[in-house]
C-alpha cells in the first residue's frame, strides 16, 4: 500500500508498504531516515521514539498505515538541537544508539515541564534504555538543557 505522511515538515510518500510494517521501518528503510534506531521492536527500549502528531511514541509500535496523513518528527527534524547540544556537552553519548530516542523523550519532557525534578526526569525517561548504562550523564544532559530553557519564554 501507499503511505503519505508529513515527516519533518516535508510531505513524503512511501510505496509498496506491507500492511504489517511499522512506521519505524518506513522511516528507516523507505524514507532514508535512519536516525530513529531499531532495537527491541516491542516498545521496551525507546530507541525509536519519534513525535507522531506531536505525541512521543515508539515508532516500532505504530503501524505504517496509522501514520497516513499524519505528522511525524524524528531526530533529524528541527527543534531538538538544544537538547542534542546538552547531550554532547555533558558526554551523555557513549555508543550513541539510545541517543536519538532519549533526545526526543527528553525534549518531550522539557516542553511539558521546563524545570523537572530528578524523579520526574527518571520517570520521563523510564521507557528509554541505555545499554552503556550512561544514565548519570544523561541526567546531567537533561538538567543542563532544562537550565538553558529556563531563561526562555517557551521551549519549541
Amino acid at each position, binding site marked *: *500500500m501507499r503511505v503519505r505522511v508529513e515527516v519533518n515538515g516535508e510531505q513524503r510518500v512511501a510505496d509498496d508498504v506491507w500492511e504489517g510494517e511499522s512506521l519505524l521501518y518506513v522511516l528507516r528503510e523507505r524514507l532514508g531516515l535512519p536516525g530513529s534506531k531499531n532495537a527491541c521492536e516491542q516498545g521496551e527500549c525507546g530507541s525509536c521514539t519519534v513525535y507522531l502528531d506531536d505525541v512521543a511514541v515508539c515508532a516500532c509500535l505504530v503501524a505504517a498505515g496509522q501514520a497516513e496523513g499524519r505528522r511525524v518528527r524524528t531526530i533529524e527534524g528541527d527543534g531538538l538541537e538544544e537538547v542534542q547540544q546538552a547531550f554532547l556537552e555533558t558526554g551523555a553519548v557513549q555508543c550513541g544508539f539510545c541517543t536519538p530516542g532519549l533526545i526526543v523523550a527528553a525534549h518531550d519532557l522539557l516542553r511539558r515541564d521546563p524545570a523537572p525534578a530528578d524523579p520526574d526526569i527518571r520517570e520521563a525517561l523510564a521507557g528509554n534504555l541505555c545499554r552503556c548504562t550512561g544514565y548519570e550523564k544523561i541526567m546531567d544532559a537533561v538538567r543542563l538543557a532544562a537550565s538553558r530553557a529556563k531563561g526562555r519564554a517557551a521551549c519549541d
Partner: protein
Amino acid sequence: MEFMRPTTLAEALAMKAATPEAVPIAGGTDVMVEINFDKRRPGALLDLSSVAELSAWDLRDDGTRIGAALPYARVIAEVGERAPGLAAAARTVGSPQIRNRGSVGGNLGSASPAGDAHPPLLADGSTVEIASVRGTRTVPAREFFTGPKKSVLEPDELVTAVLVPAPRGPQQFAKVGTRNAMVIAVCSFAVALDTEALTVGTGIGSAGPTPLRAVEAERFAAGLDWDADLPESAARRFGDLVAQAARPIDDVRGTAAYRRHALGVLARRTLTWAWAEYRRSGCA
C-alpha cells in the same frame, strides 16, 4: 494483509461484521509486538485510530464514559479524578511512550490476566460497552473475562468504551514488578471504597486465569466498623482473604507462592491507605 481505516464507528462496525477475523489496532502496543515478532499474521488490521468517538470521553449521570481508544496518558490527565483507581493503574503502565498510545480498550480486547486496567474496573464496578452492527450491549467488567486472553467479545464486536461509576470513596491500586516502569505485573491489586453503601470492591490482577474479585475479602470488609480506624488485625485478615482468593500459577515472572504472598501484602497496604484517606476526609 488488508489494512482497513474506518473514520466512524458505524464504518468500523460494518468492517468488523464483514471481516470478523480483522484484528483491531489502536495504540499498537500489543498487536504490533506480535506482528514484529512474527507471532501473528492477521489477514486484516482494523485501524481504530481515526475513529474519533473511540478516543473521546464524556460525563454521564452515573459516572464517566471513557472511549476504548483513549490513551492512558489522557485517562490520567483528563479523567484522573473521575476514575481514580483506573488512573492509578494507568500511571503504572509501561512508559510515557506506551501510555501515549495504549488504551483501556486494548487491554480489554487482549484480556490478559495481567492487564493493568482490569483490577480497578472490577473493584469499582465498571461496565464494558460493546458494539456490533447488531447493536450495543453492556457487560459488567466482573463478567467480561472468561479465561486467559478470552472474553465475552464476539468476533463481530468491538469494545467501544468503559463506563466508570462516579467514585464514592477512596480507590487504590498497587502492583508488583521488577522495576518501577515497563513491567508486566507479577501481581496487582485494586481496592475501591464505597462510603455510601459501606462496601469495598476488589480486583486481583495477574494471579489467576482471569482478573478476579476477592469476594470473601469484600464481605469481610463490608462488616468492618466504618466509624473507626482500621485495626491492623483487620487489614491483615483482609490481606489473607485476598491471597486466598487468588488462583496464581508459576511462570517466568514469579511463582504462585510468591504471588499469593505479595497479593496479601498489597491488599493489606491498599486497604490501609484507602481507609486512612476515608477517615481523613471526615466522611466517617
